[in-house]
């Protein structure tokens, strides 16, 4: 086995290096998800997770699990949008593509744009090769049109979508992000959470004592303690009682393991294997990110500027996620945080403050005794 080293002094990083395995990850392409929930079912079956909820739809479209949790490691979100929302999503996606990097484009001069693609690529491609990435988006550009020689600036491109629908479903299968800088892993006081040889983050349930710190540490709200209270048993049925349910690892933290037990056998995670549309792709994280970049460029070329990637940027607050997503609207629409940041990034500053505060308290106590000397 290899030895862990710490990357560029980041307290939060915990990579295995020189591992025999490359980093594994998911690429969840929500644009081809059909909402069949086969991933949820396969995950439950394989990991023997207890029942969550009453099998009833929650009233929020076709969602019946609500969110990721101790017993739900894949959660399919359903969002119904009308044309107005679609237009907004398209607009926000276009802004994202046009986000001038490294300079901000002045609002008054639309055509004198910086080269956003280069900048965006530079940002997104850091830490990997940019081979296989398109250098120019394949847009419906009329090269004779004025300003069209700025092919990377989508504001000059007629991006009237080919088929603006009046209505659309957003369906997304959410999962643990297996962050590069994992908040849950950092704050775990028992060492129950560990970084595997596949660079995934897994809980050892025989070690975890259920302190709950990781629950607060996760910026995505993924990990949860498996308490009695988190399992809603169907009260309306006499033949199913809480006591009948097999609840393994009660009282400990639980989350997606990226099917660690399957990976060590050379298999792929249950959700990815069962996905009928290949919306959930599994493989080397590097490949996943490249596929994601290709796919988003492909969708942009079709005028679907609402497409964007989530978690593919190694500069983000969690150092990039092992599970990369292609989304069709702002992340918060799917219940994802728009700017997550691993809380342990602030630790050095907080410890410093706590140290100063502690010294201040010592000084206050000392002065208190000096100030009340008895003559």
């Amino acid at each position: 086995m290899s030895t862990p080293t710490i990357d560029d002094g980041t307290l939060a990083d915990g990579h295995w290096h020189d591992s025999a395995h490359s980093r594994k990850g998911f690429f969840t392409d929500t644009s081809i998800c059909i909402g069949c929930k086969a991933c949820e079912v396969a995950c439950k079956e394989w990991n023997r997770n207890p029942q969550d909820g009453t099998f009833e739809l929650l009233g929020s479209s076709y969602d019946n699990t609500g969110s990721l949790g101790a017993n739900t490691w894949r959660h399919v979100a359903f969002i119904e949008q009308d044309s107005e929302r679609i237009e907004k999503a398209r607009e926000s996606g276009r802004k994202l593509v046009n986000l001038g990097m490294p300079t901000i484009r002045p609002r008054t001069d639309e055509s004198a744009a910086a080269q956003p693609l280069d900048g965006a690529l530079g940002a997104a491609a850091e830490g990997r090769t940019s081979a296989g990435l398109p250098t120019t988006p394949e847009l419906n550009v009329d090269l004779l049109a004025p300003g069209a020689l700025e092919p990377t600036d989508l504001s000059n491109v007629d991006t009237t979508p080919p088929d603006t629908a009046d209505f659309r479903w957003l369906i997304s299968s959410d999962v643990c992000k297996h962050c590069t800088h994992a908040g849950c892993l950092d704050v775990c006081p028992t060492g129950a959470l560990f970084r595997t040889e596949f660079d995934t983050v897994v809980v050892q349930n025989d070690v975890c004592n259920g302190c709950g710190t990781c629950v607060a540490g996760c910026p995505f709200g993924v990990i949860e303690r498996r308490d009695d209270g988190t399992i809603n048993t169907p009260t309306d049925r006499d033949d199913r009682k809480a006591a009948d349910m097999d609840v393994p690892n009660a009282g400990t933290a639980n989350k997606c393991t990226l099917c660690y037990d399957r990976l060590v056998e050379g298999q792929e995670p249950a959700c990815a294997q069962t996905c009928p549309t290949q919306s959930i792709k599994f493989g080397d994280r590097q490949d996943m990110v490249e596929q994601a970049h290709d796919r988003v460029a492909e969708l942009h070329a079709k005028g679907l500027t609402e497409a964007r990637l989530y978690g593919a940027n190694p500069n983000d607050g969690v150092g990039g996620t092992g599970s990369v997503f292609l989304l069709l609207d702002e992340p918060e629409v799917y219940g994802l945080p728009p700017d997550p940041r691993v809380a342990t990034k602030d630790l050095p500053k907080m410890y410093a403050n706590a140290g100063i505060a502690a010294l201040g308290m010592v000084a206050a106590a000392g002065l208190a005794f000096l100030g009340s000397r008895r003559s």
Partner: protein
Amino acid sequence: MSTSEYDSYRPPEPEGGRRKRRRGGRGGPSGPDDSGGRRGGRGGNGRGGGWKNRGADGNREMPMVEDVEFTSYYGRPIVKAPPWGDEIGTYLFLGGLAGGSSLLGFGAQLTDRPGLRIASRMTAIAATGIGGAALVADLGRPERFLNMMRVVKVSSPMSLGTWILSGFGVGSGVTFAIELDRITGEKLLPLGPLRKVLHAMETPAAVESAFFATPLAAYTAVLLGATAVPTWNAAGRNGLPYVFVSSASMAAGGAAMALAPVAETGPARLLALAGTAGEAYAMSAMRKRMHPAEIDPLDDGEPGHKLHRAEKLLIAGAVGAAAVEVGARVFAKKLGGGWKTRAVLRGLSVVSGAALAAASAYTRFGVLEAGIESTKDPRHVVEPQRARLEERRARGITDDSITTGR
């Protein structure tokens, strides 16, 4: 209240369903919204009022900038609250109390104040014991509490805290044993020749305990700060450690005022007064630097009530402590003789000391519960995150967003 033409294709909603869902929550029945997701800005009142009218009734400040508009996933939480209940709140309070008391006990030992010394050491060990038990009780698997000692992990404030508490407990336990031995006339504990060894340990143990005392009071702020819970994280980044050590000073000073004779608790009063000033200042400075959506949970609801109560008790306790201090100095000579003066001062000391300790407890519970509350509405997560993302973009930093166009 049909907002979409597609609503007509749906089965009728159950009565009252919409109102329930607007409060969020997992099981609430619901119907379609205008766009499948709820407008997130400002909780449930997004549709009717609009941002410009918010605060028009004088309830709160009128907003000067437009709300960050976002659509949440049916108002469901984004981050999860840790499963931390009253046990943790109790521990936050008792940990600070124990740390401050240990400092007072050490000082009392050095300045020969036996009454203050005994009271402080007893408080410290009782707080450590009960606090530690509360921590274990809050675990999902209490029988595995020793697993906390498997590793020493700098990145985990909970891990460091375990070691701080353990280190503190050792010194605190030894000084407690010594006090107990003294009180019982060196008879109760069957020590034999070891008694001399035990008593020789007094100063080293007191120093050891005092060494861990202030980290014990301060680390819980980092524990809360190093989380994704919006209000805690923002507080931790903006000076929560100062609030917590001030609160600890206040609690320890207050407890000593209540338990030890007035003639000896001069340092306790001064420490408590320093604590009240520190907490009042640090709390307001912290709030000034936080995003409005992160402050709201500190003002609203039950946590808001608790923090409000803490403020009132703090002021009352500070006034009382100051009065006792002035009284003790003015009537310094009488303290030996006039029982009436002594009784009045002692009574005032007990009451104001208890008020200060209660203020500290309310602060801890208020901060704890405000954080848990802040996870319930995604607005507390999304608005500050969007704001800081936009702020970075405005500064020209555009390469660190988790969402990328390519």
